């Protein structure tokens, strides 16, 4: 009985050891597959994030353009001149009243 009785676990392990390179390669294949899935998912996440940033950029660009218009219309020279002369009682000195300060 003892002679004929075979240890199955042993055989399996022996067989595995015998084919250890194949097993290793199989394991690598599996790992590789998981890595591909992982990276492509990461890639998609980044693409999505990138796209959202682009949209954000477009939104900010539009906002910038509108702010620019507002700034321009508020800082329009004739408006500034009008406010300075009418409301703040300022005036431009004549050339003869100007004093030149030379920076050495």
């Amino acid at each position, binding site marked *: 009985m003892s002679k004929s009785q075979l240890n199955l676990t042993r055989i399996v392990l022996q067989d595995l050891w015998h084919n250890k390179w194949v097993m290793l390669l199989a394991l690598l294949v599996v790992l590789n597959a998981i890595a591909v899935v992982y990276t492509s998912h990461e890639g*998609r996440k980044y693409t*999505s994030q990138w796209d959202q940033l682009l949209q954000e950029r477009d939104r900010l660009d*539009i906002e910038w353009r509108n702010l620019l218009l507002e700034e321009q219309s508020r800082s329009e*020279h004739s408006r500034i001149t009008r406010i300075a002369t009418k409301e703040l009682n300022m005036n431009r000195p004549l050339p003869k009243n100007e004093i030149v300060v030379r920076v050495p």
Partner: protein
Amino acid sequence: MSKQAKRKQKPQLIQWRLYVVVGFVCLMFTSLIGRAAYIQIIEPEKLRHESDMRTLRTTSREVQRGLITDRNGEMLAVSVPVKAVYADPKVVHDKNGFADMRRWQALADVLHEPKEDILKRVQSNPRKRFTYLKRQVTPAVADYIKQLKLPGVYLKPESRRYYPTGEISAQLVGITNIDDKGIEGIENTYDDWLTGTPSKQKVRKSRDGHVVERLDMVQEGESPNDLVLSIDQRIQQLAYRELKKATEANQATSGSIVVLDVHTGEVLAMANTPSYNPNSRENLQGFRMRNRALTDSYEPGSTIKPFVVAAALEAGTIKVDDIIKTNPGRMRIGGKIVRDGRNYGDLSLSGILVHSSNVGMTKIALSMPVQELLGAYQTMGLGNYSGINLEGESAGLIHDRRRWSEFERATLSFGYGLMATPLQLARMYSILGNKGVLYPVSILKLKQEPEGTQVLSPEVAQSVMEMLVGVTEKGGTALKAHIEGYPVAGKTGTARKAVAGGYGEDYVALFAGVAPVHNPKLAIAVVVNEPKGDRYYGGDIAAPVFAAVMSGALQMLNVEPISKREKVRLAANSRSVE
């Protein structure tokens, strides 16, 4: 059978059952593998197509037209994205879009248009596939319309061009039409440079609308370019304001002013009246949109006189310290009479220019061959394009003919019988301030110094400029162009407008000059066309505009006023030529 017997019974293999089960299992696996192989290898296209239909999209990135700024980065034209609202009447009809009239009422309200008008456009022809409901609506309104969820009503991105400076630089910058294409001025000339094309790309989108994969470019976009003009908006607005004041006060038909940087040929300001508001496209009128400073040419009148003197000095027919007799203040040539305002007696060259003596000018002009004078005019930029490269520029007019009567030669010397644009006039005066070098005019901000041509010797340019100082001093014709602190070398002009068969009752008042004489910086030409008031002299109408703009602009550019010592030297110099 006893319990014992049952246990001892040997299990029997029923062969056919085994085969059936194994057969079924095998069949299942083969069919599964077969199906998988079929989908994967033999016919993968169909499913791929189905997937692509659900995930593949073409996105386009809209680009805005380039900005136009002045030399200091102030905005002259800005594009802002807006939306166009359009309808597909067929879809509206098919989807029974008129069921809920409240939505259409809301649409009409937000577009500020009667509901009937909008409905008429959509209902008139149910088979039509496209009709604009409103163009250029703001993003907020567009959002509102989106939420109305009207079937068959869509939004389309567009762009709206704003001109923050409005009428001040309207003719120069020009405008675009509703389809964002430049039709006037800079917008027209540099349309290709300013316009970009949207890029289109295939992308894969996830279920929630995020882009997860970028595939190939369908259309490579072209990004638009910005444009930096040589204009200084501070000077531009000052020039426009002063010109407008003068035009209105004298009830003139129109007016133009050009401010040039003497040392580079850059245009710092170019304004015209009457102007228009480029931000509203309704009631645009052609005569308001023309950039008269370069499209309209006038007879330059006396403003041309310094260049006759310069040409004669260059040709050597007169000397700087020559004295010319103008007694008795009139002169008969070829049966016609040239006359002065009064008898000025003996005049130096400076005196001739200061008193604008026609007799003196005639003598100088007749001292040299007419071809030489015309040649000099031409080398100084008359009758040639200025190099500004804008649509509609006039080259002015110099007659090219073999025979000239003596009287015609005389009139040439005081600015009749030839035409110049205000831009050309300013350019000619810039020669005087730039030691005789003529530069091509540029409307774009220059990165490096342009290539000029020496058209007058530096000494001639300098001495003619100093001769002109007297014009704005006591005893000259343009006291109103005098600026305290900045000596001006300028000349007035008053020309009768030519009509068919002679000269009419209308005048053109001109003033052109450079300043400050001790360190020239700006050349300005002012033309006021057909003033209707009592006064029509260049010295009364154009000179005050010149003075206001010149002194303001020099202050803005931080040009140092003349020092006492310089003043003494200049006074001594101009006295020596008097």
